[in-house]
């Protein structure tokens, strides 16, 4: 990075702070920005600032939104009695894009990570507890990831809500669609057998 002029160095180092961006990619992006038109660069810079100033968390589900409540909580055709709990807005977006879910969400904004010191106090649980206590929820679908952290979080939610009169479900784990048993790892295979279903 030594060869670059100071402002470029600064841009590379800022871009390098983004997740998944190494120094090489940061340099490539910086060069792209440098070659772009003044107008395009302005749009990019403004959109970065805008996202920070305009986006807030939905009052109900903590999804990212411009309004008080997000478009999903706002939509009266969605089943408000079913809440799908996800780790972050990206997971929510992935489920939304699948198009197969017509309930609502709750975003935890994190996952239990004991080794990083992230405990229940660091997750957004209060809003979920409040919604459940209001008494209109019939089912909680726990859709945290299937690694140790996601599983531990799922166990915590189960423990917290098992006394309430609601159905608690966990997303299925196992064979990916189109998967070939020969190439699937042991853990996935054993989960597939554990969560087998009747035909």
């Amino acid at each position, binding site marked *: 990075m030594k060869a670059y002029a100071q402002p470029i160095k600064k841009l590379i180092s800022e871009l390098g702070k983004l997740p998944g961006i190494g120094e090489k990619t940061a340099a490539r992006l910086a060069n792209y920005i440098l070659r772009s038109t003044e107008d395009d660069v302005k749009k990019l810079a403004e959109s970065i600032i805008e996202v920070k100033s305009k986006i807030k968390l939905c009052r109900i589900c903590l999804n990212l939104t411009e309004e008080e409540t997000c478009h999903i909580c706002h939509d009266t055709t969605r089943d408000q009695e079913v809440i799908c709990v996800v780790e972050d807005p990206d997971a929510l977006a992935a489920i939304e894009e699948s198009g197969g879910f017509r309930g609502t969400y709750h975003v935890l904004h994190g996952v239990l*990570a*004991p080794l990083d010191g992230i*405990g229940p106090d660091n997750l957004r649980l209060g809003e979920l507890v409040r919604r459940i206590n209001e008494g209109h929820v019939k089912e909680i679908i726990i859709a945290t990831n299937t690694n*140790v952290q996601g*599983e531990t979080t799922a166990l915590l939610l189960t423990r917290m809500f098992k006394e309430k009169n609601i159905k608690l479900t966990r997303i299925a784990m196992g064979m990916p669609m189109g998967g070939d048993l020969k190439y699937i790892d042991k853990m996935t295979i054993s989960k597939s057998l554990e969560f087998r279903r009747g035909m």
Partner: protein
Amino acid sequence: MAVRESYKTTGFVLRTLSYGESDLIVTFYSHDFGKLKGIAKGAKRSKKRFANVFEPFSLTNIIFTRKSRDMLAFIESCDIIDHYHAIRQDMEKTLIASYFIDLTDHFSPEGKKNEKVFQLLRDFLLMLGKEKASDATVRFFEMRLLKLTGFEPALEHCIVCKTPVTNGNSYYFHAGEGGIKCSACAQPQRYEQPISAGTVRTLLLGKDMDIEKIKLIALTDSLAAESRSILIGFIAHVLGREVKSLKVMEQVRKLCT
């Protein structure tokens, strides 16, 4: 150019750190090399090569190469031996297992082989999978790890007058001096909590007792609280920092009881 030598070992995954766009830096506690750090190229992207292997406290077979002892290992392959299914299905046990590897990480310098520490992890994870999670399991793990890594607190006798622990007497634990004092030597302040001879004896017992017998031990509330306060205080003192996974364990306990 130095030749990369190839090595094979078994190791527990202690932690992973995201590195760049697609790689992970993985810390293991290995049988043959003690704490070992290696880079797993493409582990974040390729779900085939390293599928589900780098999960905390999983026991794995590792093949790695490296140019020299002080360089990061290059992980060629890593396969699961045991992912401790029974532990992962239980929140309390997962938190305890996480605490075990967190402590092991803190108390182990890189590259220093200690087969007994490896065996300790292996024995305790096996026991945790089979038996009920208990305070005794956690405290006895702490005692044993402290002993194996050279930080065993002096609990056999008063560190000042050397009088052996006697039933019925009260003692005071001094983390800074690494041991207990009898009430005559301790000159306790009003805020200092005494600990019973029973607690001291329990910890001494747990340090060496046969692993198979640990499941038979159930600490009373006061014994559990006293031994906890001694060991947690001592560990924090030795490390000079709090242990994150312990803090998380406390938070969960508070929420779920």
